[in-house]
């Protein structure tokens, strides 16, 4: 049971769940199995102790967190699994196989995702006051950067290198707006061209953990997000330096 819960925890947490959800889901499963569970979330590991109240046996495991991309599909299905166990519709001994099923059928990126993200970033540019030309430039820069991101992720490149490379490419492409005098809002174009790389979900998760009192985990997530943001700025600054554009 402890092994199952540890595996469940690293997958749920790795997909980008908040600490409060992790705790609630694990306690739900534990209650159904008639055991007690205590967890500590460390920056790269989850420390899990399971105690059987009947004979007082305790088992402790420390499992490494899987660095997965954020997937709300996985979080939704793993949460449903915990309810199925708690409501008794899924016996505990079959939970392990069901977890394998969920993990092996995890959805990958939908086709056409770069175009969707491009459209989203172009709309974002519009919300910040960019004109139609800036939106077009941002669309192209985002699609190119995002395709590069997917290609590098397939080769298991370090996420920090990916962000530096993608923000550099997007910034250089978006610089076209100002360099060729196409539109009236070149600063908005170049500023919003890299925003698809901002780690928004880790930032929000970090604040959620902070409100919940999981300060170590909150700090860990915050540092991760800050490092990614610094990489993003490094790529952006280098791109602008190369294109010889001032910031304002």
């Amino acid at each position, binding site marked *: 049971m402890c092994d199952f819960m540890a595996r469940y925890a690293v997958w749920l947490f790795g997909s980008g769940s*908040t600490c409060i959800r992790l705790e*609630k889901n694990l306690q739900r499963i534990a209650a159904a199995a008639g055991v007690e569970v205590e967890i500590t979330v460390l920056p790269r590991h989850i420390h899990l102790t399971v105690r059987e109240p009947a004979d007082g046996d305790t088992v402790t495991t420390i499992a490494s967190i899987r660095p997965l991309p954020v997937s*709300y599909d996985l979080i939704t299905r793993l949460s449903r699994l915990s*309810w199925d166990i708690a409501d008794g519709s899924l016996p505990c001994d079959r939970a392990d196989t069901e977890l394998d099923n969920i993990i092996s059928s995890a959805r990958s990126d939908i086709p056409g995702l770069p175009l969707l993200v491009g459209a989203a970033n172009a709309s974002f540019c519009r*919300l910040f006051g960019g004109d139609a030309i800036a939106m077009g430039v941002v669309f192209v820069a985002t699609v190119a950067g995002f395709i590069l991101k997917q290609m590098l992720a397939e080769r298991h490149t370090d996420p920090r290198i990916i962000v530096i490379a993608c923000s550099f490419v997007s910034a250089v492409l978006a610089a076209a707006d100002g360099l060729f005098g196409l539109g009236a809002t070149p600063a908005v174009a170049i500023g919003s061209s890299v925003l*698809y790389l901002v780690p*928004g979900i880790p930032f929000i998760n970090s604040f959620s953990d902070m409100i*919940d009192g999981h300060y170590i985990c909150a700090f860990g997530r915050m540092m991760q997000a800050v490092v990614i943001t610094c990489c993003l700025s490094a790529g952006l600054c280098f791109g602008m330096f190369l294109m010889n554009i001032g*910031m*304002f």
Partner: protein
Amino acid sequence: MDFFVHFFQDALFAAIAAIGFAAISRPPRQAYLWCALIAAVGHSTRFLLMQALSPGMHIVIATTLASFVIGILAVLISPKAHVPAETCLFPSLLPMIPGMYAYRTFGGLAMCLFGSTEQSFSHSFFLFANNGLTCFFILLGMAVGATVPIFLFPDISFRATRS
């Protein structure tokens, strides 16, 4: 008339941005439409608070209130969509991320480093601190405003996936 055109444009582009950014974090299919709807309502709430009132509300307070609206909506909708509250909530917040403030913060910082005279340094430092503070408090307001409803209604938020 002009105001209404701006208002609906704001909602529409917020919805498109929410769908695209939500897609990066791989939500279940039924969540896309809800994300778009909640983001549109949230962003137009902020638009109204900042533009329709006179004098307009400060961006930090307006964002916090709009995030709170988004949070309440997401918590109420999540049992209907059978997804955890965060699935609808966090992607819907993304259109409000203060991207241009963050950009100007880093721009100011870079110019501080390369500025040579005291005057140019002071100006860059002002840009850095002014934009940085606004950016930080918008983010904080967003996160607090949106997560408070989850903690207020834990019974709804954590039962949504029960079949």
